[in-house]
């Protein structure tokens, strides 16, 4: 048994039992971050803070929300919005955060793609991040069901129908997922469970994995430079902070990180207080009605690009294209055949690939929002083909890339 001595302070008492000093050193004061980074490296902390906002606002919403098809709509739109003191605040924080979190996720992803932060030992960071993206998507979808408005109902109908697999006609599977022939009580209850328990648990676990995956390869930097972290850390600790290429996570990096978080939070609460409506579809303020489809069904903005890949094709081809779009980002570290882990601007054709992909996804997003009429249908069709084409081209253009 370890030897314990009479504690000289509360800190010492805890330190003997929980090694709080070691923990602090390993996780914070001697966790090294490269100096050569910019504000885009703060997106991870911005995401962590946004997740915390979702969790806290969600806890308060959970106290009044009723997962019952007859009560859900009023429990949100009347009880929480009208009766509960500051209930509107929790709802608008929750709704705005659910939308903004995807904006930050996309910025975080494209930062990783631009700087090549998914290769040379950083593959698991990318893969765990993509798993988080999928988990957040499921969380967003299940949460969207809960107010039980028209968009909730019909999004639930359309998305669960995807599991019929087109011509496979797996209607039994769809009914199994719903627990009914159509979205009804069983459906609302199980998506409520997924939203408040199972998926958040998965997200928390995946965040742990994502952070863990970062420890050995360390954070990438603006030049993709391979840093000898031990040597640079030794310099830093010896007092040569000027020539060391690294800084401590706490307080050096955190102070900058939280500065960005501060600016972000001002923007965030500006949206919550003055522009929350962008995250609240007006159609969803009509109660769910299984006998009336809204004239135009579209998902929230963050799903539009993949929805637009589904839409211009016939059912089966559309489903295959959609499935392709859902999994292909996972394979990025393996489809990129170049050993260069430097910014896209120094990577020849990949530079054009990066910007083409970004612009194509913006076009897909815009086309997913408009009704399926010409010329939008045609633009969407070619944008979807471009998306698939770019991924097919990726291994070839990176294979012949010159060593940077």
């Amino acid at each position: 048994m370890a030897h314990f001595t009479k504690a000289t302070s509360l800190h010492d008492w805890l330190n003997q039992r929980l090694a709080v000093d070691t923990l602090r050193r390993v996780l914070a004061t001697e966790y090294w971050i490269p100096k050569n980074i910019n504000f885009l490296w703060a997106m991870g902390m911005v995401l962590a803070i946004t997740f915390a906002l979702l969790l806290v606002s969600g806890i308060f919403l959970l106290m009044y929300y009723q997962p019952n098809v007859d009560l859900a709509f009023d429990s949100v739109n009347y009880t929480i919005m009208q009766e509960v003191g500051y209930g509107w605040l929790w709802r608008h924080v929750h709704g705005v955060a659910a939308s903004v979190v995807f904006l930050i996720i996309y910025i975080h992803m494209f930062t990783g793609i631009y700087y090549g932060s998914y290769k040379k030992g950083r593959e698991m960071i990318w893969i765990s991040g993509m798993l988080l993206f999928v988990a957040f998507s499921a969380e967003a979808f299940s949460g969207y069901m809960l107010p039980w408005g028209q968009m909730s109902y019909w999004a639930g109908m359309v998305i669960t129908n995807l599991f019929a697999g087109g011509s496979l006609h797996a209607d039994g599977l769809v009914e199994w997922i719903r627990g009914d022939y159509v979205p009804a009580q069983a459906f609302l209850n199980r998506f409520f469970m997924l939203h408040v328990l199972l998926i958040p648990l998965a997200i928390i676990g995946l965040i742990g994995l994502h952070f863990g995956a970062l420890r050995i390869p360390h954070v990438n930097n603006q030049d993709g430079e391979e840093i000898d972290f031990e040597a640079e850390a030794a310099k830093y600790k010896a007092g040569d902070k000027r020539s060391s290429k690294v800084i401590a996570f706490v307080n050096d990096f955190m102070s900058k990180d939280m500065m960005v978080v501060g600016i972000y939070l001002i923007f965030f609460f500006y949206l919550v207080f003055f522009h929350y409506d962008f995250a609240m579809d007006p159609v969803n303020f009509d109660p769910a009605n299984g006998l009336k489809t809204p004239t135009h069904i579209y998902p929230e903005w963050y799903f539009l690009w993949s929805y637009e890949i589904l839409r211009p094709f016939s059912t089966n081809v559309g489903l295959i294209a959609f499935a392709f779009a859902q999994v292909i980002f996972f394979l990025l570290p393996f489809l990129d055949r170049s050993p260069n882990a430097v910014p896209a601007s120094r990577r020849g054709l990949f530079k054009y690939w990066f910007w083409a992909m970004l612009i194509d996804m913006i076009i897909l997003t815009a086309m997913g929002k408009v009704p399926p009429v010409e010329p939008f249908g045609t633009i969407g069709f070619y944008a979807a083909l471009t998306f698939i084409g770019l991924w097919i081209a990726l291994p070839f253009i990176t294979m012949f890339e010159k060593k940077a």
Partner: protein
Amino acid sequence: MKNSSRRGFMGKAFGAVAGVGAVGALYAMKRSWDPLPSVKAAGFTTLDMSAYKDNELITEKWRGKPIFVLKQTKTMAEKAEANPKDIERLIKVGDSYFMVCIGLCTHLGCIPGYNSDEESFLCACHGGMYDFTGEVTKAPPPRGLDIPPFKVDGNKLVLGEEGPEYKKMKETGVTL
């Protein structure tokens, strides 16, 4: 060596117990997600077919799904007779022909709207179109509107029961 083989045995024994338990647990979980018997049992709707008017779309409800009932006019029935794909989709009750379909687009389940002047359906979600018998005329829907299980009973139509006319439609592939 002796110890490790004992440990090996214990590991395998635990693996066997855990494996049986895991399969059992997964089965129980799967069954818990199944539709409830009460949900499955509530599922027969009887329609009085004498109440419908020519070329006026009425939406009934069966198992929570909208059911389109469209009584065909004389000219519509004649047009349908000229096209075998159309006529075999219609249900004859008494002297009249009816289109009776599940009112969900076979693409992704939105409810198409009916335009009685053009005698056609348009699904607003992804632009699919159907004619007055529910046959698809414009993609993306992969097939015509599905026809629910039905049984003709004099002047009435029972949804949820499979009569001979419905079974024939299934065999010939008119509906799924």
